[in-house]
């Protein structure tokens, strides 16, 4: 499997995965059955946009509106990595 993903794909959190703010660590975290992933600001910004409605292209666009120049390739690679770990599911938006 390659890390290429379609710009029309629609990412959402994987089955059983939760995103929440952890007050005691002052960070967002991804929660899964046996894992806790503590997110940095970039990861949080991307994952908050993975709502099952926005496409990959929409997410890059929204990040650009918020942060200016955003390297598309890096966002794609991050989404692909999370999808391979099943932290995200990406359904075809076509």
């Amino acid at each position: 499997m390659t890390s290429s993903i379609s710009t029309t794909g629609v990412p959402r959190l994987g089955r059983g995965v939760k995103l929440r703010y952890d007050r005691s660590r002052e960070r967002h975290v991804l929660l899964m059955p046996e894992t806790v992933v503590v997110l940095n600001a970039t990861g949080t910004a991307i994952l908050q946009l993975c709502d099952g409605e926005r496409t990959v292209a929409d997410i890059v666009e929204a990040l650009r509106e918020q942060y200016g120049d955003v390297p598309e390739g890096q966002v794609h690679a991050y989404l692909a990595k999370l999808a391979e770990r099943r932290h995200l599911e990406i359904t075809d938006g076509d």
Partner: protein
Amino acid sequence: MEIDGPLGLLAELTYRCPLACAYCSNPVELEAYREELTTAEWQRVITEAAELGALQCHLSGGEPLLRRDLADLVRTAADQGLYTNLVTSALGFTPARAAELHDAGLDHVQVSLQADEPALSDRIAGSPSFARKIDAARRVRELGWPLTLNVVLHRQNIDRVPEILAAAEELEADRIELANTQYYGWAAVNRAALLPSREQLAEAEVVVREAKERLRGRMEIIYVIPDYYATYPKPCMGGWGARQLVVVPTGDALPCLAAHGLPLPAANVREHPLSWIWQDSPMFSAYRGTDWMQDPCRSCARREIDLGGCRCQAFALTGDATRTDPVCHLAPEHGIVEAAVAEANEESRPVELPLVARPHA
């Protein structure tokens, strides 16, 4: 010193169990754990764990479904924002019970299987249970939960890994944990009948490696190596009093689920707040960090990597919890582990050996 809060609470709600697996990690003196915490006591423990920083609540046992208040406890944990994980044999996971837990906000279900087919699975479980487990696993998926299967591997089922993986695929499991037995509690009693041979392990590992590649992105395979065959020990629980907090049915809090027998003063949630237990109790402070280490751990370059291995295993095998975990090839008592491994690899040794069933409690 500022001590980070725990990431997870492992709530061992009861040691009662409809199964009788010989590899069980529950303590051998099961009758000492009958005075279980009440619903209100568990709810307080869960709330205090969340306040300390815990993010996950694993509801385990024994069989947690034997607690009639399970849904109430799930609801408390969910209200606290904890990720709730039910670790179950799936016996008693009826449609009504499943619906009740779903409504309470349960996030995830892990179902144990003992093998891929009824005869062997039921023999290992000591109870006719396989068919009900498969039904329950399907129910998990029907209600939209992610499904994790957990299979404890040992001498008497490790040759079935290809078939076990096929069964997991058929059930559309999201994850399968293939966890080689760790020799605590009843598993320690049964070690000679459970420890696989080197050849058995090598064959299983080839199958696992191939399946991981083939199923990448579809089903996650977590393979827990058998530490008796490892060169270095596992960093048990991610460090003593570092990440996980175990509370046993009668309220003793432990840094590791095998710490029942250690010669440290008990830290019971009926007597102390969880914050004191986590931060200050002798039970949780004794082996935190690396100051407690003797050589060879103390001067070892890997001391921050494997943290000396498992304190409970060191105590069980040597009688001194501050010794290097004997599975480490550098441990002075490594010969204990080597002798067990040599026995498991004797040419004439049968695969199937008699098992001592744990009682239902």
